[in-house]
């Protein structure tokens, strides 16, 4: 526990601190820019784009070595990865637009081919003498071992730019994600906006290569957004909640992995995000599973109670055990099924309300109001006391409900 707390409080050493801050920033950038990926349903495209970074890393390394460099400059490797990722993205877009192939086929083809080429290049590099300690495999699943200050700076600068661009473009991107045809009719260039969105995602992928790796980065982009969806019905909030979830996962995940020697950072971050996702799925108010179950049960009880009272009013026998149990619990019927005093009074009230509704439908022209009849809404919520008094005048004196 102590190591974990130390890591949480950034007391676990210089490297761990760099990693935690970097991971939090990366998580925020990935979460917020990934929100549009989720809203536009392009998660798999980003997976292909992430895999398409690998050949770029290899090519950049070979180029830098052949130019006499050491080949390990992070900026150089990331630039290389961005180039092939962009080519992969354009290729997917081109295949989908120009051929009859569906996007999923294009994604599969590009992902497989680019990743394959990348692995071949990595293998070749490992057999080169200069590549012995290149450590390029770290880009697959991420590695924090030799994280430098400048690596953290790359993440901080790139991540901030990505968040800024997301904020700036939130309206066009929302419009395109929700209703691209309308966006086009308004004069937005849908294709450009889509490319821009994927460009943002690609940028986050590239800066996240070192920390999380290309295989798991898609999880960092998507899980926070899916999690955020459980907490809100509004797209602009999805963006920032996703950012917060991503940032928290990055920070907590980095702290966890720093607290024990053999815990890989990238996968742990993803697992933390998944944990937050599961918690949200279960416990989020309104949209969570538990809330939905409770709401459904409450609603069911209301319906049964109401139906039971209507049966009492009409002096029909109540056959459903659940209904009877509810009425008995509320003291509306006795154990032998005979209505109590309160039960009779409430039944009379409800029967009268039903007849008031009938009158309301006849005399009221406003369908907006009479349309609110659903068998459950109390009539007092819809009409004023004066209106109800008017209905009563038309109804005549209340009839007593029998049952005694």
């Amino acid at each position, binding site marked *: 526990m102590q190591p974990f707390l130390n890591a949480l409080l950034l007391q676990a050493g210089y490297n761990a601190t760099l990693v935690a801050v970097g991971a939090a920033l990366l998580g925020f950038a990935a979460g917020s820019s990934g929100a549009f990926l989720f*809203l536009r*349903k392009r998660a798999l495209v980003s997976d292909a784009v992430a895999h398409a970074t690998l050949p770029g890393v290899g090519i950049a390394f070979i180029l830098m070595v052949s130019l006499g460099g050491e080949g390990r400059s992070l900026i150089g490797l990331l630039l290389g990865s961005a180039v092939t990722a962009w080519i992969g993205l354009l290729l997917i877009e081109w295949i989908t637009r120009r051929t009859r192939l569906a996007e999923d086929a294009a994604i599969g083809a590009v992902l497989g081919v680019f990743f394959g080429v990348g692995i071949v290049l990595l293998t070749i590099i490992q057999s080169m003498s200069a590549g012995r300690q290149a450590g390029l495999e770290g880009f697959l699943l991420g590695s924090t071992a030799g994280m430098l200050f400048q690596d953290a700076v790359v993440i901080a600068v790139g991540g901030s730019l990505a968040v800024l661009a997301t904020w*700036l*473009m939130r*309206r*066009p991107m*929302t*419009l395109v*994600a*929700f*209703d*691209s*045809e*309308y966006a*086009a*009719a*308004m*004069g937005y260039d849908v294709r450009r906006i889509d490319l821009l969105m994927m460009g943002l995602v690609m940028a986050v992928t590239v800066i996240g290569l070192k920390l999380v790796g290309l295989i798991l980065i898609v999880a960092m982009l998507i899980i926070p957004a899916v999690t955020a*969806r459980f907490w*809100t*019905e*509004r*797209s602009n*909030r*999805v963006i920032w909640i996703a950012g917060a979830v991503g940032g928290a996962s990055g920070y907590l995940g980095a702290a966890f992995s720093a607290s024990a020697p053999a815990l890989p950072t990238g996968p742990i971050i993803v697992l933390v995000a998944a944990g937050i996702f599961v918690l949200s799925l279960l416990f989020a108010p309104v949209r969570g599973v538990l809330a939905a179950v409770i709401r459904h049960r409450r609603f069911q009880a209301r319906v049964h109670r109401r139906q039971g009272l209507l049966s009492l009013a009409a002096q029909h026998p109540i056959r459903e055990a659940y209904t009877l149990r509810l009425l008995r619990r509320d003291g509306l019927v006795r154990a032998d099924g005979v209505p109590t005093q309160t039960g009779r009074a409430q039944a009379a009230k409800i029967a009268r309300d039903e007849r008031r509704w009938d009158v309301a439908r006849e005399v009221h022209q406003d*369908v*907006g109001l009479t349309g609110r009849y659903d068998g459950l809404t109390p009539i007092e919520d819809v009409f004023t006391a004066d209106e109800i008094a008017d209905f009563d005048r038309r109804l005549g004196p209340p009839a007593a409900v029998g049952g005694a």
Partner: protein
Amino acid sequence: MAAQDGRVTYPAVASVSDAPLTVRGVTVSYGEKPAVFSVDASFPAKAMSAIIGPNGAGKSTLLKASLGVIPRLSGEVHVFGQPIEQARDRIAYVPQRASVDWDFPTTVVDVVQMGLYRKIGLLRRLSGQMKAWALECLDRVGMADFADRQIGQLSGGQQQRVFLARALAQDADLYLLDEPFAGVDAATERAIIDVLELLKAGGKALVSVHHDLSTVREYFDHVFLINVRRIAEGPVETAFTTENLQATYGGRLAATHLDELSLARGV
């Protein structure tokens, strides 16, 4: 049904180049078979125009291609005398069946505010005045009570009205509507037509795809008949005739039905 008061009169020579919407030689094709072939059309100002034709005639295609939602193979489109790209802010569009993700995290009022996105641009915040305007547009289509619902939790007719409110929010000069009355009940149809009449009275031009031939005379001033090619166009009185309908629908409308429609003119 008798013609409504306030029907526009046609000047002898309408200045075509300044018309709200002029389409010249537009051809659109999905694959090898043109859905719209070399169509010319001109829709008048301060009027309600109907685009009429059978299913698959290319009505929606013509609207979408005019707006640039789908590419044109040929032809040009002018809006108030300008190329359409320069007059975007003056057009509002209500699609036939909005192809949206109904589970999208957006509320009814958010959707209406989307109509304002071009106006506010990237940086500015939505002002209180604009929010009030969005609510007013919702109110005009009778959907103010639903402002905070998630968009998927509405019936089809209610969704249609929200998309109309989104177009109203744009405060455009030309409204392109693709079957605004499809799947709405009689009271709602009445409410929508009232909204449209009000726009017309405010000097706006409206172009609407319309299927119900029995209400054409009541609602519209101008008709454009299409079946892949242009069949006829002009004021309802002269262009909405049995012969033209026959030419548009072919043998698919019984002759007696057509006669009824064009006899019910009440002029």
